[in-house]
């Protein structure tokens, strides 16, 4: 972390215990202030907050879209009262989209949680332990990194009972390799670092070294990767739901597109698919901007380039 002259003076003035605290807060403040200067990162954050707000406020914005809509409002192009138009059963597409935001965010969050947890475990095991055990996990990571996973996700999604939770679980089960590779790299780098050697000499167990020393130091890249994993999960969920393997009892953005495809008016009624797709793209772009901004902010080597 970059410490200015005044920071250093402050630290010297405080007691030793306060000093650590002070430095940490300065670090966080530094990160926040650097992030604020990143235009794309702030734009991404704003878009995400806006879409999340739409999802949270869904009950205020529109009624939950039922199985049938209004008879008089079948297949309307966007107009006053139905800003996103209506589908072939007279259901408001705005309502579907804002309610869909909830499902899509839920699936993505759950999948990201699982993928990150799995990635951390596999990455630490493969990177920290030398020899056959580590090599085995490394091989598993390599296989999952190269194999086309969407067919596997589709297969598994077709076998389990479709619900938002199982969908998130299935996507998470196949989205961990990128995280695992990052954690593995960090673990290999830190394994032979002087402070880890020192801890080992002091008698710390492997689990203590992994959890107390390596994991916290590997946290920034894991943190950055969260947004990329979430973006991929949003797209994966939409793809699976589009193929008709989503949760039939919940609206998600992919489900809307699946309905649009099934209606047979996919080409004529452009508004069925366009608005949910736009929300998907906006969300994923926002997550990517967030991730890139975080990379710049959290990686001191990239600063000032």
């Amino acid at each position: 972390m970059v410490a200015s002259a005044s920071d250093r003076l402050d630290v010297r003035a405080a007691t030793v215990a306060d000093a650590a605290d002070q430095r940490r807060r300065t670090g966080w403040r530094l990160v926040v202030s650097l992030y604020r200067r990143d235009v794309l990162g702030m734009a991404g954050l704003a878009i995400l907050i806006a879409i999340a707000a739409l999802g949270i406020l869904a009950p205020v914005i529109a009624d939950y879209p039922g199985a049938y809509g209004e008879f008089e409002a079948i297949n309307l192009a966007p107009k006053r009262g139905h800003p996103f138009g209506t589908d072939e059963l007279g259901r408001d597409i705005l309502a579907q989209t804002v309610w869909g935001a909830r499902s899509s965010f839920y699936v993505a969050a759950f999948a990201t949680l699982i993928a990150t947890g799995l990635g951390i475990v596999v990455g630490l095991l493969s990177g920290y332990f030398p020899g056959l055990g580590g090599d085995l996990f490394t091989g598993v990571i390599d296989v999952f990194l190269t194999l086309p996973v969407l067919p596997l996700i589709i297969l598994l999604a077709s076998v389990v009972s479709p619900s938002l939770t199982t969908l998130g679980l299935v996507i998470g089960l196949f989205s961990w390799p990128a995280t695992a590779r990052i954690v593995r790299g960090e673990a290999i780098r830190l394994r032979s670092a002087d402070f880890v050697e020192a801890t080992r000499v002091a008698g710390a167990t492997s689990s203590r070294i992994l959890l107390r020393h390596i994991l916290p130091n590997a946290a920034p890249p894991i943190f950055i990767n969260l947004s990329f994993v979430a973006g991929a999960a949003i797209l994966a969920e939409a793809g699976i739901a589009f193929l008709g393997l989503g949760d039939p009892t919940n609206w998600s953005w992919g489900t809307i597109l699946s309905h649009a495809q099934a209606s047979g008016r996919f080409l004529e009624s452009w508004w069925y698919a366009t608005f949910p797709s736009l929300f998907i793209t906006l969300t994923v772009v926002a997550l990517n901007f967030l991730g890139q901004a975080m990379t710049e902010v959290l990686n001191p080597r990239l600063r000032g380039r």
Partner: protein
Amino acid sequence: MTVRRRPGAGSSAPRQGGAVERNGDAFDQLSPPAGRAGDHHHPDRGDADFHDPAFLTRRSHLNLCRSLHDRRDPPEDPRRLRSDRSIPVQYAKYLYQLAQGNLGVSISQREPVSDVILETLPWTLLLAGSSLVLSVLLAVPLGVLAVWQRGRSSDLLVRATTVITGALFVPWVALVLMNFFGRRLNWFPIGGAKSPLAEPGWPTVVDELRHLALPVAVLTLTNLGPFVLFLRTSMVEVLQEDYIRTARAKGAVERRVLLRHGLRNALMPFATLVGLRLGFLVSGAILVETVFAYPGVGRLVFRAVQQHDYPVLQGAFLMLAVTVVGFNLLTDLVYGMLDPRIRYGG
């Protein structure tokens, strides 16, 4: 995920009635217990097992076989499955038949799985391969442009575009392109891989290329981002090397520094990426092929999932995995040709 074995379930069940032991033909890996052909109240159909995919897969086999058997399941029907054997025995038989090139028989199409897959694999390879080539052809100039104009507006434009195209939803891009180029301009057909009436020779080639255009465009557009960003990053890294400073110091012009010294050295990690991305292209091909009704492996997988055609699924995954691994091997070999410092086998 383990397959639970309870008394009365699966293969451990004592045979009821006169179990007809059929000759072990080539397709005997999975078949319904012959004595329980009409037994619809099977003890292992409890809801407690519902979330166990491996079990469910096997149970679907049983149900399916039972319904086939209800229609008299003739012993000569090659689709007969023998799920009365234990799982290890089934797996050993599967491997044995696999070694002989036998992938089983498609439940829905009554044809050997290998034939079904070989019909579709060329189309997917054509689609993913063309997209891969096109991606490289587009990524190299875009990446070099971004590095050359680093920090300026064209660099930002290239980077923003790659992020946005990577976030597009494949079926929607397909929809837009279909509507514009297919329906409004009528330049390209909006589905299928070929016209039935095209004359052999050049007209067929042109016809197939026209069918290929939109799917390849969608697949390339949505997958281009990582290629460009990766090339840009590795060029930026290469340009910080000492030999670049040497090249500049001896007076090489910027174009020569960028292309001869920068690009050539950045291409090596890039080649690895190209091999690795094939798996992603095949993944993306599922959606593209489904939307465009393109008769490739992706669409085959999708339809097999819908029809619960497990032999086809099993075979298709195997073929995809083999293809991807094969391409990775190819990449490693190309890597050796690009970088004279790497020599294989001593």
